[in-house]
């Protein structure tokens, strides 16, 4: 198995706050990797470092043996790493279909955009196909701002997919979403994973993570604490300490 995404010793401080201190992480090709940890443990900051929104103070990020440390976010996307945000970010005043079209160009030159129309037939077809995949194709003509929270999550997933990235980073895909949709999203992720997509998922919903992921990394105070299969992680005393501050073990097992 080859390592697709390799994070080594990444550090990042915001003023006096050490958000990441020597954090390392490997994501194998074709797997679903989970990233969990208490609030403020640096999960989203790590996402931001990987996808080029935040420049790390130290350490390196490599994607498919190519160094992408500090690369600009549009370049990271063009290489094949797509991400969603914890608080969904869509283009509220564009239509759902236009939202999809923004992502279709991936590594097109910016000058090309001046001379071509908004979309080609095949791009619209691909966009509609992915909208259909997540189940919101009939909303394509609506303005994205009128979508509900759950629909926005689906749209965000769909416009990542339209660019056909190799790795998809999901920041709390199940956050603030009801149970039916959580299961639906989990099912989509499984289907996509079978078709060869690699995932890295940040999530607080333990059931979601434990059922879905092949590997789970636990972060604590800006560093990776433990990495292993869901079963290994669940029984690791270090993890329980990190999450519950060393409180009763029985409670933790019930919660998981």
């Amino acid at each position, binding site marked *: 198995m080859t390592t697709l995404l390799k994070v080594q010793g990444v550090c990042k401080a915001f003023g006096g706050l050490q958000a990441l201190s020597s954090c390392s992480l490997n994501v194998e090709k074709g797997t679903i990797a989970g990233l969990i940890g208490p609030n403020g443990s640096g999960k989203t900051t790590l996402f931001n470092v990987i996808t080029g929104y935040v420049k790390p103070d130290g350490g390196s990020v490599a994607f498919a043996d190519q160094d992408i440390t500090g690369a600009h976010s549009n370049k*990271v996307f063009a290489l094949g790493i797509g991400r969603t945000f914890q608080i969904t970010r869509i283009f509220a005043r564009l239509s759902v279909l236009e939202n999809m079209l923004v992502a279709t160009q991936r590594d*097109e030159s910016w000058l090309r955009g001046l001379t071509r129309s908004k979309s080609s037939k095949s791009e619209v077809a691909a966009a509609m196909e992915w909208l259909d995949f997540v189940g919101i194709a009939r909303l394509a003509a609506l303005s994205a701002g009128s979508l509900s*929270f759950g629909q926005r999550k689906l749209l965000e997933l769909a416009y990542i997919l339209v660019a056909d990235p190799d790795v998809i980073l999901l920041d709390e895909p199940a956050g603030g979403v009801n149970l039916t949709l959580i299961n639906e999203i989990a099912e989509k992720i499984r289907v996509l994973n079978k078709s060869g997509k690699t995932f890295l998922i940040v999530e607080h919903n333990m059931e979601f993570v434990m059922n879905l992921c092949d590997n789970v990394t636990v972060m604590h105070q800006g560093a990776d604490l433990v990495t292993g299969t869901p079963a290994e992680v669940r029984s690791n005393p270090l993890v329980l300490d990190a999450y519950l501050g060393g409180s009763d073990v029985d409670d933790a097992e019930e919660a998981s």
Partner: protein
Amino acid sequence: MSRLKYGWWLPVLAVFVVFPLVEKNPTYTTIGVFALIFMGCATSWNMFSGYSGYINLGAAVFYGTGAYTMALLSNHLHVPGSGDQFWLVPVGGLVAMIVAVPFGLIALRVRRHTFVVITIAIFFVVQLSAINFSFTGGTSGLSLPLIPWLETNFNTPFYYIALGIVIFATLLSFAVRRSRFGLQLLAIRDDEDRASGLGVKVFAVKLTGFTLSAFAIGMCGALYAVFIGQIYPQFVFDPLFDISIALMAIFGGLGTLVGPLLGALVLESMQQYLTLQFSSSSLYLVIFGALFLVIVLFMPQGVVVYVRDLWTRHSLASDDDSTPMDPALSGSTSA
């Protein structure tokens, strides 16, 4: 559908073409020239600021650059006061674009309010330079070669060239809106970081849009210089120009195609007319204030958007076939 949507452009254009043939009074054709100049500027300004949301309050830099380019070139190249000067109008636009590149490189590094403040600051730097450099003639400005045309027909060529610039700016704005580039500008307006994360080269796109918008504004400035015959730094680099074209676009509808055209036509004609009628040139400001109060209170997105929404609601109400949208998608919570 598309015929209904675009079919009204032609009659409107016909009215603009016929206007100077019917109206021979130079007082009113002068108003026409000024209205067209501002329509071109507002449309071109909107093509960047309206689509991208980056409100540029330094567009007078482009206008003044176009005007000074025209004045300096016609003087130094000894272009006689005749129609020959009109060939330099596009040159004014090109020089404005060249000036827009360093301007954009500095200002586009920051966003929103900071961007607005930076554009104002750069504007004043340029205005002060125009006042203090010797090649600009300082505060006494520059005279252009006198055009020995009869008063009765003097305005007509200016009117049609200005109309040509307006058509060009409108077509360019339309083309940009239809292009992938325009979609990227709109995406930047809604969420720049997200756009970047979807592969949009945001800085290159912004700088291109900014530079492109300078072209028509620079041409308008160059035409204005020939029309007026004498330019002064405080009138071609005019803070009121910056605010006027922004207000015109906002009045009609920011980010719409027709909005800036309508806003500039109404506001500039009104201003010119009121100034002529009541000679006290500040009365128009009172009326403008009242007008904007109405716009902000009742049509915050501009006249065009307001009318379009009314129309959509009207046609939805009369259309029985309209399929109701499913209120909720399976498993999604409310927004």
